[in-house]
Structures are given as structure tokens and as C-alpha cells.
């Protein structure tokens, strides 16, 4: 219950749209799991809401050479099982992460032989080649530090016996339904305010709002755009809206006719009124995207010119490309309501310039396979730059070595872009990197392998008396700072 008039509550109920898959940071990398793991585990480095790097379990760090960083660990940090955090745990964690198929890519740059424990509280980590985003990657929940003993003891069942150093420790899990965490009293930092957290799985988006209204939950994640007004106008509720790292885009299969012609891609960019789509589908939530990465991501190019809605120009370009009578093609999406809605409007708007579209809605699994294999023509997808570093948001999506499954499902290839992305990845100089990314984004905008749709936002609904909650752009929000305002 949460109708206790003011005062502290003893159980914070948080609703999200899906249950966690696993509480082993190396077993999965899905949002619902990360949101729970965030409370249990800590990383060497953290990023605050502004994506500034802050000390985590590592008190300090320094770059030793082009490839190597040295980290100094905080002393006296206890795991939930009573063990003290040692550098060996960090080594163990990173090696284990490297083995993992699920999160391997996040630590992929690290050279397994380059991890060196200097003493109990000092560790060096080297990459196999220069990798500028390493620190950002080490702030990702996937690199949460585990306790070697706990992992070995639990074996296969570690995923539901997680042991971290975070402010909350795992208590119980009713699979598919809810997870309970309790405050860790030996936490090395500022202890959490609320003694217990319950993560409830409420699948139906609308129901989360209803439950928030009826007071069954205190915090509800991923509020439907349709419910924005309702919550904002509700006297007992607050809605937090903040842009996040996600971008939704409409991609063209650049290897297939007619999308191998840049004019066709540009024409479609002109032919679609993105703003109206965002309004209709998302009630105007988020922002119309102007480039491949959103403003929250570092080095996002905010000066790109939007194409704008210009049917005449679109027709011209099509005529230029030899399609004055338009053509028929397909638009692929998976069974995600948002994407389907976008497709519905795109279809209608493209009719205007003579392009007839069949919408192919595939089930997620089939969709991933088909788009990876290049069976598609146009498609709608999204991307989250989880690390907040542009490398993550550009490299695998536009580099010609990352075709298909790896992320580049448009099969877009541009030598200059490849070169720029490689350079930025290697360089340790933020200025050099920024310049490279800016140019790459410009080329991508002009060559239009994507039609940029929108930058997503996190919408979290709160009971009004909940304080201390901040949306984190990566989507997993800290809960130990949350408290309930005393009634005056």
C-alpha cells in the first residue's frame, strides 16, 4: 500500500512492461533486467544524468598508454554476501564478460591478456587496439562487478542469486511476475532511503497508468504517449519526460533497386511529413530526429538540415531517378505497435508521390533474420546508444564491415564514412573524434540511408509525493535516491 498519509513508505512498487530475464549481468542485456541490476550492482565508473563520467567502484583512474588504463578501487566495499571487493573480482568479472555472447561486444575491445591485477585495489586494463569509448563502456551495467565466490558457488543458478555491491540486495523473485529487493545495510555509500523495492511486471501499457492512478504502484516506467495528458493533469501524479539515447529510423536497403539510387532515398525523405507522424503516433513525444544520434549523445551533430516535407521536390527527384510514375515496394516492420503505426502513415503519405507500399509485418524473430539477410526493401527499426558514446551509435550501423546482423541493415557503404568511424574509434583526442563524427553524420544525412524519425524520450509516471527520482538517458534509473516527501 502507498496511501499512508505522507511519511516514509517501506516498499517502493515500480511497474515495468516486462519481467527481468536474468539478474546475471552477463546473461542478458535487456532493459527490464538492467533496471533491476542497476540497483544491485555497481560498475567501476558511472555516468550521471548528464553522461559525465563519475567514480564508481573505482575511486580514480588514469591512462597509462594508448592502450592501457589503471584503476584504483575503493577500499572496504562489501558484497551482499559479505566478501570484500578485490581487484581479482574485477578481473574475474571482465574475463567472464568477454566470454559472454550477450554482452561480449560491450567489453569486446579489452584484451583478455591485458588485464593485470597490480594489488588488491589496483588493476590495469588494456585494449587490443586503441579504443576511445572504453571508459563509457565500463560504465555500462553489463560490466557490473561480480563476486567471484558468489558466481562460482551459485553456478548455473547465479542468474537468480545475484550478488553485487549495490545499495539493494536481491530478496526474492516470482518469475514472470515480480522481483523484490531489500536495502543492503552494509552499503559502502549513502544508504538507500526506502527499505524495499518491488518490481512488478505489468505488460499492458495502459494498465500501468491505471495502476499508478489507483495507487497500486509508485513509479511506472514507459508511460504510453496516449496517457501523457492524463498523468500530467492528474493531481496526485507527476510525469517525468526526458530525451533518451534511442532513435527510431526508417532504413532503405541500399543494395536493392530502387534504393541504390540516392535520389530515391532523398525523395522519400522529402515525401514524408515526419512531424505529423510523431504527432499522430507518439502524441508529439520525443523530438523529431535530425541525425542518426540524438542530442543526448555526445558529439551529436545538431546543425544538420532537416529535409522537411516537400512533395514537389520529392517528385522531382523521383523523376530524375526515372520513377516519375512511382513504383511499388515493401515496407517491413515487426509487430511493434509504434512501428506499425508509423508504417501505416508512411504508406499513406508515399501514395502521394506514386510509391505504393505493401507493409510486411513480421514477428520479431523473423524480422531480425529477414532484415539481416537483406530480404527487405524499406524497414523501420530503432537503435539505442546505450553507452552515450557516438561510436556505439554509428559504427555498427553505418560501417561497411558491419552489414546485416551486425547492425548495418541498410547495407550502406561509404568509404569516407568507414574511414571517419575508424579514426574516431582509435583516437584518444576528443576533438579529433568529435570532428570525425560530425562529418560522418553530415554524409549520412546527405546520402540518406536512413529517414530519421524521432529521438525517444523516457516517460516515467510517479506518485506526486515521490522525490529524488531522475530519468537516466540510458533507461535504467537509480532508485536508491528515491524517498517520499513528508506531508506538511
Amino acid at each position, binding site marked *: 500500500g502507498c496511501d499512508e498519509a505522507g511519511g516514509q513508505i517501506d516498499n517502493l512498487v515500480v511497474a515495468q512492461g516486462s519481467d527481468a530475464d536474468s539478474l546475471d549481468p552477463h546473461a542478458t542485456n535487456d532493459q527490464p533486467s538492467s533496471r533491476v541490476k542497476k540497483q544491485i550492482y555497481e560498475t567501476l565508473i558511472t555516468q550521471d544524468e548528464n553522461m559525465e563520467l563519475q567514480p564508481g567502484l573505482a575511486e580514480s583512474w588514469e591512462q597509462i598508454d594508448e592502450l592501457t588504463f589503471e584503476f584504483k578501487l575503493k577500499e572496504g566495499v562489501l558484497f551482499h554476501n559479505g566478501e570484500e571487493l578485490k581487484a581479482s573480482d574485477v578481473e574475474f568479472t571482465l574475463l567472464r564478460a568477454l566470454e559472454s555472447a550477450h554482452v561480449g561486444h560491450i567489453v569486446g575491445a579489452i584484451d583478455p591478456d591485458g588485464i593485470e591485477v597490480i594489488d588488491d585495489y589496483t588493476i590495469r586494463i588494456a585494449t587490443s587496439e586503441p579504443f576511445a569509448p572504453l571508459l563509457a563502456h565500463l560504465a555500462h551495467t553489463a560490466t557490473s562487478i561480480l563476486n567471484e565466490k558468489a558466481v562460482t558457488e551459485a553456478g548455473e543458478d547465479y542468474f537468480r542469486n545475484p550478488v553485487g555491491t549495490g545499495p539493494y540486495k536481491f530478496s526474492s523473485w516470482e518469475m514472470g511476475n515480480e522481483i523484490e529487493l531489500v536495502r543492503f545495510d552494509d552499503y559502502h555509500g549513502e544508504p538507500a532511503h526506502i527499505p524495499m523495492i518491488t518490481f512488478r511486471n505489468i505488460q499492458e501499457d495502459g494498465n500501468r497508468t491505471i495502476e499508478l492512478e489507483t495507487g497500486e504502484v509508485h513509479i511506472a516506467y514507459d508511460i504510453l504517449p496516449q496517457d501523457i495528458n492524463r498523468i500530467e493533469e492528474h493531481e496526485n501524479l507527476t510525469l517525468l519526460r526526458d530525451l533518451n539515447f534511442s532513435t527510431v529510423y526508417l532504413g532503405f536497403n541500399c543494395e536493392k533497386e530502387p534504393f541504390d539510387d540516392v535520389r530515391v532515398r532523398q525523395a522519400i525523405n522529402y515525401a514524408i511529413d515526419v512531424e505529423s507522424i510523431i504527432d*499522430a503516433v507518439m502524441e508529439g513525444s520525443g523530438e523529431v530526429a535530425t541525425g542518426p544520434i540524438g542530442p543526448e549523445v555526445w558529439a551529436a551533430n545538431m546543425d544538420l538540415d532537416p529535409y522537411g516535407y516537400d512533395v514537389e521536390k520529392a517528385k522531382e527527384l523521383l523523376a530524375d531517378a526515372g520513377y516519375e510514375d512511382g513504383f511499388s515496394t515493401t515496407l517491413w516492420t515487426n509487430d511493434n*505497435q509504434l512501428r506499425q503505426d508509423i508504417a501505416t502513415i508512411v504508406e499513406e503519405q508515399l501514395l502521394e508521390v506514386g510509391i505504393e507500399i505493401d507493409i510486411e509485418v513480421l514477428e520479431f524473430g523473423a524480422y531480425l533474420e529477414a532484415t539481416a539477410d537483406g530480404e527487405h526493401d524499406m524497414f523501420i527499426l530503432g537503435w539505442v546508444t546505450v553507452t552515450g558514446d557516438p561510436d556505439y551509435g554509428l559504427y555498427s550501423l553505418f560501417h561497411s564491415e558491419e552489414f546485416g546482423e551486425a547492425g548495418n541493415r541498410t547495407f550502406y557503404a561509404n568509404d569516407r564514412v568507414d574511414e571517419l568511424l575508424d579514426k574516431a574509434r582509435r583516437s584518444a583526442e576528443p576533438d579529433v573524434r568529435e570532428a570525425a563524427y560530425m562529418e560522418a553524420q553530415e554524409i549520412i544525412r546527405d546520402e540518406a540511408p536512413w529517414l530519421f524519425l524521432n529521438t525517444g524520450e523516457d516517460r516515467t509516471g510517479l506518485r506526486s509525493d515521490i522525490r529524488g527520482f531522475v530519468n537516466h538517458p540510458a533507461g535504467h534509473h537509480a532508485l536508491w535516491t528515491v524517498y517520499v516527501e513528508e506531508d506538511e
Partner: protein
Amino acid sequence: MSTQINPDKGKTNINGKPKKKRGQWYEVWKRLSKNKAAIVGAIIIGALIFTAIFAPLIAPQHYRTQDLENRQQPPSREHIFGTDNFGRCIFSRVVYGSRISIQVGFVAVGFAIVVGGLLGAISGYYSGHVDNVIMRLMDILLAIPGILLAIAIAAALGPGLVNVMIAVGIGSVPRYARIVRASVLSLRDQEFVEAARAVGANDLRIIIKHILPNCLAPIIVQGTLGVAEAILSAAGLSFLGLGIELPKPEWGAMLSEARHYIRDSWHMSIFPGLAIMVTIFGLNLLGDGLRDALDPRLKG
């Protein structure tokens, strides 16, 4: 044969002319037409079919025409069922939706009847090992819950009208196989089948001419009710997001979409919901009526 007794001399209603050839179906029709509920059902279904055929004439606009300026408008003179989240006319979409529901219902059931009927007929007529194998197969199919089977099949084949129809159809194959098998088993030993064999009819003729026509009654009844179920299942699949191609107006998909708007725009979910309900209602009425008409034993 001078002493021949002609029983027809005693008949009071002799009119000399040969009777019109009106088979059992005429009787069925006569009985059906006396059943008010069944007539209501028939009218509903008739109206539905009419709507489906003349959808372009009935619907004020095309089902996909959008008007993003006028989204989620409540019912008005212009759009009597209001508009949806794309500003499309819900009435038009409901009208066009009848086409899909009818197609799904009839094709899925048709598929199930053909496949199930064939399996059932073979199973019943030949019995023995063939029967055993087929019926165990049906048991297996039955043991997999229908909607889950449909989901799995839809996932395997991909969404789309045809696949939905197959998915829904396969799930009800065992039912028809069982019905037909039971009928065939009971008919196989009827004396008229034996009589046909006695005058030299072969298996094929016996199955086609003597057995199948007599299985028709339970199949028709089950079929009518099955169409209702198929429409519901298809709507359920759409509700789960495994339905029909966009932007086709399947009622279940409309409902599914409308549920996000249910609190502000009740009309978006009421009308497709009512359309489903009325259709199923009509089919059930008709099916019940047919059952009574086809099986005079059941008459009150």
C-alpha cells in the same frame, strides 16, 4: 398380379401428379424458417455478407484514407462511428472489416472441413491401422491448445490473411475429423450402404454418393459454429499482434489498437467489438437453428 394391392389408393392427398422433387433440404428449410431465432441469425449473416460484397458502396470512404488532423473524433454526422487514431473513418473500416472476417471464417473452416473431413472419412471407412494412425495424430493436434498452435503456425508462416486462415483452420481439423469419422462409422454399417454394395457399387461410389452426403448435417452445424469460432480466433490473433496485413481493417486488430485509447476514445473499441459480437451472435443463432432443423429429434 391381379390381386396387387396399391397402398396409394388409400391416400387422401392423391393428386395424380408426380411430387415435386424436393429433398431433405427443403424440409430443413421449412423447419428452419419456422425458427424465429434462426431467421434473425440468417438475417444478420445475410446482412454481413451483403455488407462484405458491397463494402465499397456502403462505406463512405476507403478504409485506409487518413486524416491526421481529425484523429479520434467521437461519432458525428460525418463519421457515424467516429474516427480512429489516424483519423480514419471507423464506420468504413468496420464495413470493410466484414470482408476479412468472412474470408477468414469461411476459408479457415472450409480448409478444416476439407482436410478434417477427408481424414475422418478415410479413418472411419477403412478403420484398423489407418484409423489408429490418423486418430492419434488428431489427439496430438488436439492436445496442443488451439490458439497456441495458431500462434506457432502464424509465427512459422508469417502473418497475413492466408496464413491466419490456415493457422486457425489447422487447429480445428481434429474436430471435423472426429465428427466425420463418427458419422462414417455409424453410416458404414447402415443397411443402405450394404444395399449399395449388394448392387455392385464400389468403395468410391459408396463414400461419395452414400456416406458423405449423409455426414453433411453435423458438418454444416459444426461449420456454422466453427466460422464463429474462427472469426473470434482470428480476432484474438490480431489482438496479440499476429494478424492481418496493415492497414487492412480486421476487427480484432482494430480492437487491439483501440485498447490504448480506450479511456479517451471509447468509440474506437466499441464498434469493432460490437461488430464481432453481432456476427458471432448471428452465426450462433443460425448454427443452433440449423442444428434443430437438421436433427428433428432435437425439436422441443
